[in-house]
């Protein structure tokens, strides 16, 4: 591990201690005097409760529920640390909550849960859903995470998201749409190899197929090799990992067996979301791809192949998960905006079409600025991208009949922009007035 990373670790620990955690709750109404509690609390609040008791959907209007989501985890697969448990997952969830607020204006509450089984966790999520406008699942081990997303999307009438699945899949699709434009190929024509069959690529494959990729031309590779209908462990997969099983039946039309060495031959696109490199994907692999190859090496902190190596081996468009290289595939471009848009129109669900729309809007945004080999996806500094994606997702929800509030494009865009700006301005004011201490200088 590098010295720089070690330093980040030390800084994070000392500052977390200095500040006593990273988030706090702040009222959004004035308190002119203690008398005001007769309004905000008893007896006044009984009126509000009565109104909601008569019509539970009024809770979206009369409480902060409409803009509050729960970030739910059981801590079973946290970053690269594995199963570290709920308490240890808390700092990560706090960080995620900060990103939700800073980039999306969404109030997010870290809800770490000690659950022994996936059913227990799903049960908790279902039972706390009345408090929230949406749920983001995070850092939950596979295959449980697939069960949870599928089940909660079905049982709840508030939007549910698993960022490790959908955020990565959407950001990948956005980059791929533009990369294909750069090289002049069509999604339905290309051979796509997906290295790694975890949350990111399982969701990624499903999303690519929904967006028009030919499943027969997609090959997924897990630790045992390529997925295909005759693999030895298919029966076991049907029992313990039906999501991988379904993809094994649907994809790899040519039944290429073996591993990356065999599957990569003639591939137009490689999407690697597997173990950190370098050397997981080698230059020889890239050389065996077709002309104008597209390589997304998304592992963190070190991509499966260094981008310059991929380019030297002939790849035309390369992307990674890192901000210090061009074309960063970053979930943070997606989830804050998706929730902003979804919450503003009080959509009941987030369905694949909305996820695809988020990806397409990201792609459009970049295209307007001029795409090239080194610019296929917006960078996080391009602030306007968040209200744009939020608007696109909200409009799609309205189009699909999933929105409880039907607003116009301008209204949505205006709200999204305001909500995000407000959260940043608030932070500014707190810092300027020393209500948030400056970072101590060593």
């Amino acid at each position, binding site marked *: 591990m590098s010295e720089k990373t070690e330093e980040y670790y030390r800084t994070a620990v000392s500052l977390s201690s200095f500040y006593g955690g990273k988030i706090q709750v702040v009222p959004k109404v004035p308190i002119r005097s203690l008398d005001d509690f007769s309004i905000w609390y008893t007896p006044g609040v009984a009126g509000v409760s009565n109104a909601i008791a008569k019509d539970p959907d009024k809770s979206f209007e009369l409480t902060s529920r409409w803009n509050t989501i729960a970030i739910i985890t059981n801590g079973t697969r946290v970053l690269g640390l594995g199963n570290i448990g709920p308490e240890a997952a808390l700092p990560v969830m706090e960080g995620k909550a900060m990103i939700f607020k800073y980039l999306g204006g969404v109030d997010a509450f870290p809800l770490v849960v000690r659950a022994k089984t996936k059913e227990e966790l799903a049960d908790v999520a279902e039972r706390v859903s009345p408090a929230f406008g949406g749920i983001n699942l995070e850092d939950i081990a596979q295959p449980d995470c697939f069960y949870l997303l599928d089940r909660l999307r079905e049982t709840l009438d508030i939007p549910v998201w698993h960022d490790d699945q959908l955020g990565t899949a959407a950001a990948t699709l956005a980059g791929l749409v533009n990369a294909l434009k750069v090289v002049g190929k069509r999604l339905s024509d290309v051979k796509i190899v997906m290295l790694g069959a975890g949350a990111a690529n399982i969701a990624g494959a499903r999303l690519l197929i929904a967006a028009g990729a030919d499943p027969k031309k997609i090959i997924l590779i897990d630790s045992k090799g390529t997925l295909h209908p*005759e693999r030895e462990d*298919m*029966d076991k997969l049907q029992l313990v990992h039906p999501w991988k099983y379904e993809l*094994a*039946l649907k994809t790899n039309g040519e039944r290429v067996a073996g591993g990356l060495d065999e599957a990569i031959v003639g591939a137009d696109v490689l999407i690697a979301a597997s173990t950190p490199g370098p050397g997981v994907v080698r230059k020889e692999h890239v050389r065996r791809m077709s002309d104008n190859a597209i390589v997304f090496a998304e592992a963190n902190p070190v991509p499966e192949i260094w981008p310059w190596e991929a380019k030297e081996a002939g790849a035309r468009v390369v992307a990674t998960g890192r901000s210090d290289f061009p074309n960063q595939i970053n979930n943070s471009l997606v989830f804050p905006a998706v929730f902003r848009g979804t919450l503003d129109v009080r959509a009941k669900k987030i369905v694949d079409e909305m996820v695809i729309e988020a990806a397409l809007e990201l792609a459009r945004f970049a295209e307007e600025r001029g795409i090239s080999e080194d610019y296929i996806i917006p960078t996080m500094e391009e602030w306007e991208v968040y209200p744009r994606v939020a608007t696109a997702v909200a409009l799609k929800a309205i189009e699909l009949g999933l929105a409880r509030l039907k607003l116009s494009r301008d209204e949505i865009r205006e709200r999204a922009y305001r909500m995000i700006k407000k959260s940043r301005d608030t932070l500014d004011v707190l810092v300027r007035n020393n209500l948030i201490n400056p970072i101590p200088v060593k």
Partner: protein
Amino acid sequence: MVDSFTIRRARKDDLERLVDLVSRLKRLNGEFDSLLTPTEDLEREVSKYLESAISSDDYVVLVVEDGGKVEGVLIAKVVDRCFYKPRMVGQISDFYIMPEYRRRGLGYRMVEEAERILRSKGAEMIFAEFPTKNVIAEGFYRNLGFREITGIFAKEVK
């Protein structure tokens, strides 16, 4: 109905493919229940079993073929129960279809054909055996009108 599937009796040259299918079946059983964990020399034992079943008149070994490739197998035998009536029953001991070929109605067709042949050999009842925990198989047979009849309980005594 015209499709590319053929259900026929197994031949000697099907042996290699059938060893694969029946071994997968035994491993699948092991996934359901640790007391059904296959032995290390599974393929060898399966091969011996299949060789004698394919060439024996007492066994019915059916395969379903798609474009010349065997994708499913059903093995049954006519047995005399001796103490109960009807005495002659057909016992389905092994039944496996490759994952890609499931959920297409082939299972029903194979059991139907097995029933026909077993009846012609004198069977007046059909038994099917599978791990208790295999709820998929249970549902499948119930849909065909089968119900549970005896139970096998097990305990290790090593």
